[in-house]
């Protein structure tokens, strides 16, 4: 394996807009909001940005997706902007581009910005849309909850978990994220809920009820990266470096081959193994202090605990119920509220997760700050469906960790 990017790139600054139903704001405003916070944090001028990556899933200008919306919104100095898309994992993909540019030496300072303006579609969730020429003919145009819901039945069948046990564990995931969201002023949803509310909510896609599903939000998140040396030269002392950035993309095996039973994410296991290797992590449960995972649905977060090798196979549901991933648990997961409550503006989500980890590592997370200072923190950002997806994992930590 290549030696990877561990500690070769530092995060110079980050920013994140308030997420939510930003009825009165365009995507430009969201981008600027996240950008200005990151620029203040980084302490640089716009002209110092050598290259930029923009992640956005749905919007387009003129003939289609391009880097232009970012160039215009931020009035960049005609810097190269690359538009990236990798489903809901686009935010991490944008960061990967910026990090690789710095690691290669092609850029001293690079920007990654993810944004999504979803509340102009008229839909409560993601808009109905074509899925591609061949897919529309032979695929199932189900909703996101419908596709992720299938994890539940398959997980129950594989591990012999009763429907009620799993439903309660899934509910715990959402109750926990809502409790965390209350403490996050940038979060879309800031209201605590109880178990009964989750269990009795209307069914969206069996067995996922309303509170098992994250909504969609407007928002933007931004990262500015450079080398650790340049970061120090710019006056940074507490340096946060990228330990690993890995993406695993389905090759069709889950959907077309044989052997996958639908109860887990094959790509997440591959990406996690590579990320731990790249970061030099051999005991993830001891070395990872904090996780932000892609909790688009409660069941997704639950099985992801196993796919990240944090829970033993078949034990994710009981670990969740035991409070192991609560804000005061052994390894908090979604201490910022997660997709469920912070919100899910598609192109921004991967960067939002890293933003939270960055704040927590620096002790800047305010009322939700983890008391025991985290050392290394992981994000898991998933795009697509369980049977075919893009799984992106980042690990960041203190430079000396």
């Amino acid at each position, binding site marked *: 394996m290549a030696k990877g990017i561990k500690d070769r790139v530092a995060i110079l600054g980050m920013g994140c807009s308030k997420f939510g139903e930003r009825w009165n704001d365009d995507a430009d405003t969201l981008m600027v909001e996240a950008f200005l916070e990151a620029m203040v944090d980084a302490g640089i001028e716009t002209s110092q940005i050598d290259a930029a990556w923009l992640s956005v899933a749905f919007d387009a200008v003129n003939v289609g997706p391009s880097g232009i919306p970012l160039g215009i919104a931020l009035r960049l100095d005609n810097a190269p902007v690359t538009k990236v898309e990798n489903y809901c994992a686009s935010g991490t993909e944008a960061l990967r581009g910026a990090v690789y540019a710095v690691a290669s030496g092609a850029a001293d300072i690079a920007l990654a910005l993810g944004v999504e303006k979803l509340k102009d579609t008229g839909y409560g969730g993601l808009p109905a849309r074509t899925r591609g020429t061949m897919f529309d003919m032979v695929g199932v145009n189900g*909703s996101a909850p*419908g596709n992720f819901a299938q994890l539940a039945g398959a997980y129950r069948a594989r591990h012999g978990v009763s429907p009620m046990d799993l439903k309660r564990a899934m509910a715990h995931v959402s109750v926990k994220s809502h409790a965390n969201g209350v403490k996050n002023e940038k979060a879309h949803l800031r209201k605590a809920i109880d178990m009964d509310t989750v269990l009795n909510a209307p069914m969206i896609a069996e067995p996922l009820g309303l509170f098992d599903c994250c909504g969609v939000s407007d928002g933007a998140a931004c990262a500015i990266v450079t080398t650790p040396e340049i970061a120090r030269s710019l006056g940074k002392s507490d340096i946060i470096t990228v330990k690993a950035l890995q993406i695993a993309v389905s090759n069709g095996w889950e959907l077309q081959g044989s052997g996958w039973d639908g109860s887990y994410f094959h790509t997440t296991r591959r990406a996690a193994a590579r990320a731990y290797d790249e970061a030099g992590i051999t005991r993830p449960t001891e070395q990872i202090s904090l996780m932000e995972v892609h909790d688009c649905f409660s069941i997704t977060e639950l099985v992801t605990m196993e796919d990240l090798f944090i829970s033993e196979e078949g034990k994710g549901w009981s670990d969740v119920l035991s409070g192991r991933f609560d804000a005061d648990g052994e390894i908090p997961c979604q201490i910022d509220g997660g997709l469920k409550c912070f919100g899910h503006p598609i192109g921004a989500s991967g960067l939002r997760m890293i933003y939270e980890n960055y704040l927590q590592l620096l002790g800047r997370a305010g009322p939700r700050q983890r008391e025991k200072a985290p050392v290394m923190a992981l994000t898991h950002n998933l795009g697509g469906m369980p049977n075919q997806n893009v799984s992106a994992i980042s690990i960041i930590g203190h430079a000396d960790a």
Partner: protein
Amino acid sequence: MTFGILDFGAYVPRRRLQRNAIHGANGWFAGGLKGLARGERAVAHWDEDVITMAVEAARNCLGARDRTSINALSLASTSHPFADRQNAVVVKEALNLSDAVGSSDASGGLRAGTSALLAALLQPDRTTLCAAAEKRLARPASENEMLFGDAAAALLVGSGDVVATLVGHHSVATDFVDHFRSSDAAADYGWESRWVRDEGYAKIGAGALTAALGKFGIAGEKVDHLIVPVTLRGVPEIFAKKAGVRPEVLCDPLGATVGDSGAAHPLLLLAATLERAEPGQTIVLVGYGQGVDVLAFKTTAALAGIERGRVAAALARRVAEDNYLRHLTFTGALRYELGMRAEQDQKTALTAMYRNRKAVLGLVGGKCSKTGTVQFPPSDISVNRNEQAVGTQEDYPLADIPARILTFTADALTFTPDPPNRYGMVEFEGGGRMMAEFADADGDDIEVGREMRMVFRIKAIDELRDFKRYFWKAEPVRAPAGKES
């Protein structure tokens, strides 16, 4: 080698609309419907039409029989979904028949089914699959809404171990317009029922039957099965009486269970009769509509060796439908607020559909000649892990292979005319898997490991361009006839 009918099959949609539900909804307006408010009629699901029903009837007829000998195909109906795009060809693609087949649609009136069957029986150099199906629309609160039924039948005509031979045929053509439907009309217009019965069925119909039997030299009392595909009470008896046929040999016109399936009805009743008949019997079949076709058959010894119960199972596969409003939304008579998710453009790339027609219409997957891995759809590089086998995919038809559910859900968010949309991943016996929508699935019969069979259905309707896209779905395999509650 004898020439005649080699095999037969039928398909009836599972949902049976209760006629008292129709009357319950419409009685306030059309009180006269009360007399018809008995029994049930078959109604196609939203994703079924003449093409899909014909495919299922043909599969019921053909079973595991080798299809390579079939070199002609006809599809008779007065309710073909396409006026110009041959409907029979879609059936051909779904059945994965050879490209070297003659194919045609038969239409224009209710005799289309018997006329197409007769044409096939007069071409001894061909092996013809004669399919007929009907999904006729009727205006809400009309008599036809009560009387019609959706169904399909298929007969395989050719040389070999035939179960019946044609021993006589007679046709008359008369422009007796008891009802009509112009090309762009949604529903029939009919004339007074007494005239239709007395001048039409009794004089033209029964008259032709009497003449035919005389021409064939078959005495009425020697007829073992008389098929008069009319569900109006007393009408088959008029035919029998006039022609001197014993009324007890009249076949059940299935008015109480299926309804009148138009051009398909004579073939449906013929299939049902053949399944019940004994070797050496005489079957007389009437086709009626602006004239009459009369076909006489003699069953052979081979009938004893044929697999029985297929047609009976097709008739017995049923679930009662009490929801008249759902029926109206499925037929398009009533437009619900479908929501924003129904706005998705369902445009089909006809280029892509053509080049992928084996996969899309025939459910033909690929089998890697190097590793034996089965996959759907086929691809240049085999999906098999750690094997970069290129160009090794051989055609591997999946439609008739049993499958089991791996994952499932009931999706209340995505648009479907019949929410929630039930779908999941199914795996085929011997390899291969796919995400599939579930057809005719009830909530309580879906679980991991459940056995499913693939069925040909409408996948999406492009309302903007008035096009239908077809594909395969998975249906729960249910207990045999009679064991289902």
